[in-house]
């Protein structure tokens, strides 16, 4: 479906279903709005102890000694844990990030052993009768540090004379391990075509450099973990996580015990956006519980969340693009250096894969650098790496369209990636919605509306995220009243319980309300990967569909048994079984469910899936801004987000993802940054000073859902959680240029940065 009559929050549907595509009330809604939903910090257990973490005051220092005796002597203190309480990591490596990582790095990020690599790095844990005593005890632990010079940005850390964070870290250079000790953990390259010939054929070349600051996901609920190390050496963890099985496996690895001894119960989660995949508190709470024989709960403060968890990398990016006078991009080159933080693993690989993902370019070279710096060890953040990259590319593309004097969307359409386009990293795209998103923008009333007034401008940008599949499990129990109890392992961050239940309901001809979805612990469901990579509605949804198909198959057999006919002659449609060879006898799903006890017993449908054909998602923005030329303040006047959802299972939740991702992108663009001193101390580690946009800062984010079905999903769904954060910074930068004529090359584009740019332009 296409239209020129856009209204706020439109769905350009291509196919209709009975349940999929509707907007039922979320199953967890009542508990959430009445405060009954249980989060990790709400958990109370008998004999519960409270923990606190001692964190490094230095961004870079060698630990010479730790004396915990005074803390242990404080009345009310029950135990203290330091890194030597963890088993020695030896030479083991683990795969929990971008490839193999030494276990020592994983373990040291939980509790530092010989070095601290960032301010806020955990050094020791304390368990006490209450959190006040625990915090007092933390202050009594004496650590002798040998402060070392800190290095805070990728370009500085890549210098030959830079302070080295890890004496054992050598550079992986273009796939080969070298002996060079450096802060560059990895340099890789993607190459397509002949880059020299491409630029030689270009009539216009634009080359620019960009910097983006470290930003935090900004989830409302701080990290927390409660752990009981039981007398039988079995461990139970309750925590806020995007992946209960990841918590189980990583905690087991750090503690050096089998994963089968750990059960993880995921509590409700107050946001994650990628930041609640790493494990921080669980192993420490486990050690303290083992020492005391009692459950131990640790909850981070907001300052600890900023300084001791994983933000997204700051970056330094160079982009060079060449175009013909006819407006065809013939060559593109990029270099991306991302700050991994204290340990390797910056999300630079996906950034490099996305930097030119929206375009069909014959000649491409992309270099990526994973660089350690003295900042918190970074984690994923919504389309990790892609937002930084798109800020650079889409700003350069805007400058090219300005130089050529062509329409911004027409230029992008003329160069858009489509099915069959070969990506810089090799494979060709399958079905994608890049053109469809651009067409929706071009036709949108917002894009064509007049924008009047001084210092106002309109910008556009587009972005991409791959999405992932991985593994999910699901089981469905049929209740005798014809309803279903659906059991799954995907932490529900954005309403996925309901979107998964809807897919099962669609298969079985039921209402969404007839399915009761529950997220259970790691002992109660098959292995399920993280809630990340926009994969849950897609992959766990497929698991629910296949489990529902399993239910249907078994129910058909029961109907056949009752009617004494062949199962092949029983049809199922719209929640009703029909015996074709039995005079078209009919029985509703509910009727049959009530007879299971006397026809063979309960029915449980089950499925474990590892789907292949993941559908990537494109997202685009139209944004109008007004710049105050005297203060540098940018006001967002109007914002429209367009995204390909494949098929919107629950359009309200898709719109929520689009609006949420847009707001986070706006914050990344205009306000948010780790404001660091030269010594590596974050100066704004509170939500008062780390400026996340509020409702008062923003207009309504209008949405347009484009549906280009993903052939790899029975209903056509694509993941929608991430691509929406990718284009906002570039779209806003382009709007600022349209408003006041300055090209911004650094995020955030806050008032000081903007005033510097305006004054520099005035001086020219």
């Amino acid at each position, binding site marked *: 479906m296409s239209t020129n009559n856009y209204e706020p929050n439109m769905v350009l549907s291509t196919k209709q279903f009975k349940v999929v595509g509707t907007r039922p009330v979320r199953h967890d809604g009542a508990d959430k709005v009445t405060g009954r939903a249980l989060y990790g910090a709400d958990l109370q257990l008998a004999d519960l102890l409270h923990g606190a973490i001692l964190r490094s005051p230095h961004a870079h220092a060698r630990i010479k000694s730790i004396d915990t005796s005074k803390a242990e002597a404080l009345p009310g203190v029950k135990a203290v844990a330091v890194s030597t309480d963890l088993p020695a*990591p030896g030479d083991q490596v683990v795969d929990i990030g971008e490839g193999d990582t030494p276990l020592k790095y994983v373990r040291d990020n939980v509790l530092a052993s010989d070095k601290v690599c960032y301010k806020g790095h955990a050094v020791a844990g304390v368990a006490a009768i209450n959190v006040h005593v625990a915090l007092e005890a933390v202050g009594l632990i004496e650590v002798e540090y040998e402060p070392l010079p800190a290095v805070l940005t990728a370009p500085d850390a890549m210098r030959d004379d830079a302070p080295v964070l890890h004496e054992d870290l050598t550079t992986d250079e273009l796939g080969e391990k070298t002996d060079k000790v450096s802060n560059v953990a990895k340099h890789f390259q*993607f190459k397509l075509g002949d880059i020299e010939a491409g630029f030689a054929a270009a009539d216009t070349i634009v080359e620019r450099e960009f910097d983006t600051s470290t930003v935090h996901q900004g989830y409302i609920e701080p990290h927390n973990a409660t752990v009981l190390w039981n007398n039988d050496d079995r461990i139970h963890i309750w925590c806020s996580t995007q992946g209960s099985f990841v918590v189980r496996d990583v905690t087991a690895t750090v503690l050096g015990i089998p994963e089968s001894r750990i059960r993880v119960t995921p509590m409700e989660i107050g946001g994650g956006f990628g930041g609640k995949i790493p494990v921080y508190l669980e192993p420490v709470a486990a050690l303290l519980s083992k020492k005391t024989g009692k459950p131990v709960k640790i909850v981070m403060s907001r300052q600890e969340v900023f300084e001791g968890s994983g933000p997204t990398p700051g970056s330094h990016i160079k982009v060079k693009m060449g175009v013909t006078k006819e407006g065809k991009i013939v060559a593109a080159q990029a270099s991306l250096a991302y700050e991994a933080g204290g340990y390797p693993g910056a999300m630079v690989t996906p950034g490099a894969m996305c930097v030119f993902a929206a375009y069909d370019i014959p000649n491409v070279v992309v270099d990526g650098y994973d660089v350690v710096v003295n900042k918190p060890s970074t984690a994923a953040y919504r389309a*990790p790496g892609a937002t930084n990259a798109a800020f650079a590319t889409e700003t350069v593309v805007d400058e090219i369209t300005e130089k050529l004097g062509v329409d911004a969307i027409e230029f992008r359409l003329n160069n858009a990636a489509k099915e069959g386009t070969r990506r810089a990293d090799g*494979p060709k795209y399958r079905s994608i919605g890049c053109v469809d998103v651009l067409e929706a923008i071009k036709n949108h009333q917002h894009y064509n509306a007049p924008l009047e007034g001084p210092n106002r401008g309109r910008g556009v940008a587009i972005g991409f995220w791959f999405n992932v599949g991985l593994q999910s499990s699901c089981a469905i129990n049929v209740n005798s009243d014809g309803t279903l109890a659906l059991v799954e392992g995907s932490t529900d961050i954005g309403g996925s319980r309901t979107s998964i239940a809807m897919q099962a309901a669609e298969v079985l001809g039921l209402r969404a309300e007839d399915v009761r979805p529950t997220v259970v612990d790691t002992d109660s469901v098959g292995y399920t990967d993280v809630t*990340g990579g926009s994969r849950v509605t897609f992959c766990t949804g497929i698991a629910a569909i296949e489990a529902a198909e399993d239910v249907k198959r078994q129910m058909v057999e029961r109907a056949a048994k009752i009617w004494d006919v062949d199962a092949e002659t029983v049809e199922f449609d719209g929640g009703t079984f029909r015996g074709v060879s039995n005079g078209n006898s009919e029985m509703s799903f509910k009727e049959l469910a009530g007879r299971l006890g006397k026809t063979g017993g309960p029915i449980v449908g089950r499925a474990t899936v590892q789907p292949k054909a993941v559908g990537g998602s494109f997202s685009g923005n139209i944004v109008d801004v007004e710049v105050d030329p005297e203060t540098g303040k940018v006001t967002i006047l109007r914002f429209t987000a367009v995204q390909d959802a494949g098929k919107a299972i629950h359009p309200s939740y898709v719109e929520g993802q689009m609006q949420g991702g847009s707001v986070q992108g706006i914050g990344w663009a205009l306000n948010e940054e780790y404001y660091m001193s030269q010594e590596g101390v974050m100066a704004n580690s509170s939500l008062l000073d780390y400026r996340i946009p509020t409702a008062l800062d923003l207009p309504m984010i209008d949405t347009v859902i484009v549906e280009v079905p993903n052939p790899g999903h029975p209903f056509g769904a694509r993941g929608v959680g991430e691509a929406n954060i990718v284009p906002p910074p570039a779209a806003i930068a382009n709007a600022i240029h349209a408003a006041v004529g300055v090209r911004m090359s650094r995020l955030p584009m806050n008032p000081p940065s903007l005033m510097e740019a305006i004054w520099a332009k005035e001086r020219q």
Partner: protein
Amino acid sequence: MPTVFIPSMMQKLTGGAEQVVVEGSSVRQVIRNLDKIHPGVKDWLLDDNQLKSNISVAIDGVITPMGLLEDVDHASEIHFVAAISGGTGSTSSRSRIPARSPLHRPPSPQFH
């Protein structure tokens, strides 16, 4: 026979060849046969006879979680691409602990 697209960083092993047509009905067989033509390819891609954790296989543009076990046909395009998983950054969040050479570390601090 399937066509293997050689990643740019691996092309030094194939004498600069960007594509190699090689026999095989599974990814594992293709790699084994490719290594016979261009020695070193197997070591570049595999670790303990498994795909390295930072590498995924795409068959005709689709990343396959089956890796080496995936079947291919005569018209298949095989790509070795960087492994991503959105949230985790890797193809699998399951821990894997193969042997490695010892890490070189400075002296341990003293604990009291």
